[in-house]
């Protein structure tokens, strides 16, 4: 177990290094400086700007500085708002994205798992078919299509909920649905197939033979075992939440990190792009590791071999 953890951590450090290198050479080393396109500045000012951002150093020095800063979580000042550090920007916007992701996952859990369990319990019934249809719909209507549809129907046509910004609880509804529906579909799919398998196990028959009420057979004996594969989904799901936040935050004008990232790409605010990419990388890998640990903790049968 410990050596596995060590291996995973080593892998993660290596991956971070690769990511940092890619980020640096794909973004920082782009042809032309960030100040080329503005109206011609006096050379002294350009020189000052370049030294402020460390752009007057040789490339290898810039690379090492970047790696050193990144390993300390320091990405320097932003291009588009020079008095703001990338860190300050990220710490302003990250909590919003995290909250949105949390609502989406919560919604997915509360919707997907009951749907999947019901579908499995009433296998091949109309309920099952309806659940399967919802599941495949949720998987196929991605945030990029779902967000405008939700805005059109619930925001502009029915006028039930606000369609933009991040103020009251009502503002959370549409973004959370747009982000969470696809996840709910995945949960439904997996919990259905896992429940289908479990419900045929001998110990379920035993539980029924003992005369246990159906409720405790389903909830205590079947569901607890059926949920184990669902936990493994949390890993790939995090990646999907991350992808989704870019789009959903954009559509609903949510001031999260995903939206800021996309805007920074348009503004060529490269320090922000680099910092945010690395932050996303660290978050994703760390959470993935956590989920894997959690998985082996929940199900002792698959405890990772040393």
């Amino acid at each position: 177990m410990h050596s596995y953890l060590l291996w995973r951590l080593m892998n993660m450090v290596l991956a971070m290094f690769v990511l940092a290198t890619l980020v640096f050479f794909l973004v920082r080393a782009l042809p032309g400086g960030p100040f080329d396109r503005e109206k011609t500045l006096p050379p002294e000012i350009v020189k000052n700007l370049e030294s402020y951002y460390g752009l007057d150093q040789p490339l290898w020095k810039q690379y090492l500085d970047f790696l050193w800063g990144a390993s300390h979580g320091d990405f320097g000042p932003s291009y588009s708002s020079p008095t703001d550090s990338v860190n300050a920007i990220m710490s302003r916007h990250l909590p919003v994205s995290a909250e949105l992701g949390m609502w989406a996952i919560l919604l997915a859990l509360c919707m997907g798992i009951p749907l999947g369990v019901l579908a499995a319990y009433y296998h091949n019934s109309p309920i099952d078919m309806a659940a399967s249809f919802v599941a495949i719909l949720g998987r196929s209507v991605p945030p990029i299509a779902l967000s405008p549809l939700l805005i059109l129907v619930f925001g502009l046509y029915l006028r039930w909920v606000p369609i933009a910004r991040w103020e009251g609880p009502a503002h959370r509804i549409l973004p959370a649905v747009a982000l969470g529906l696809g996840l709910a579909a995945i949960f439904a799919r997996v919990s259905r197939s896992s429940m289908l398998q479990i419900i045929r196990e001998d110990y379920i028959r035993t539980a029924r033979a003992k005369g246990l009420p159906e409720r405790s057979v389903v909830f205590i004996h079947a569901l607890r075992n059926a949920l184990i594969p669902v936990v493994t989904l949390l890993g790939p799901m995090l990646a999907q939440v991350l992808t989704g936040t870019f789009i959903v935050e954009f559509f609903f004008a949510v001031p999260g990190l995903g939206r800021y990232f996309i805007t920074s790409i348009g503004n060529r605010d490269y320090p922000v792009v680099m910092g945010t990419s690395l932050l996303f990388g660290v978050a994703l890998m760390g959470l993935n590791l956590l989920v894997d640990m959690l998985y082996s903790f929940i199900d002792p049968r698959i405890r990772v071999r040393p």
Partner: protein
Amino acid sequence: MMREEANMAKPILTGTEDVTFIPKGESLLRQGLRRFRKNRMALASFVFLVLLTLVAVFAPLIAPAHYSTDDLGATYEKPGANYPLGADFMGRDVLSRIIYGSRVSLAVAFIGALVSFLMGLGYGVTAGYLGGRWDEWMMRAVDVLYALPSLVIIILIMVYFRAGDPASFKGFKALLYEWDRAMGGMLFIFIGLGLTSWLQMARISRAEALSIRRREFMENTQAQGLSHRRVILRHMLPNILGPCIVVESAHIPLYILTEAFLSFIGLGVNPPMPSWGSMINEGYQAMRSYPHVILWPVVLLTVTVLAFNYVGDGLRDALDPRLND
């Protein structure tokens, strides 16, 4: 005596028995086809995709107008006789742009899948075939890359490609940019997708190759002293292709959505080339007053992804009956 036995054994153990030997009755492929045909949603989706492909191929013949023909007098015109699905912010025919946009989505679906398939398969089969230390190091590299968030990587790659100034390049790089411009920006999307999507295929094909390597007929190929090339191409690949194709077809929706996303944020196709993703962005700018512009790209994108999902699921159920529940 010994030689005779060896001679007699030869016609049976040609080393190709795993490929050419077809049991009496229904072949696996035909069984699969039969199962696929019985799956009505998958079949309907398949027909839809064939029609869409025809539309994409014959776009210039079908579309009422060219995708960049604009008429500033018809800005945001509502659907009507002149513009069946309305016109966009530059007075361009939405129907024509959707028809041309299908080219981008389908090209990404097929070429993206092909690039990722070939890269992943090449890498994975090599690792699985070589085995031992080579395999270990090659797969370790995949593990490291696999941990990276692929969407962020593809965004960075596209930022890199799109920020360059084509006029300042020479030689191969200039040629690449020229091709990319000729394809409306699709070349770099293919490259970006290829670079980020081959990892999973590498893992799967490597696992398949490893399991094939342990089978007895592989020992036979060794005993016959066949060349590596022949062993891989004639004995290994035919046996692992099936599951790999199933897995790859399940990834196609992801490629379509990634392209739509990239075009949506302005890193994908080059305007005025339409993509459903870039059309969603253009429609989003005015969706409060002119919802008809955003509606159709959204619907088409959804239906296409849905169809690919159904076909992928149908393929899996048809070719791998064990998963069929």
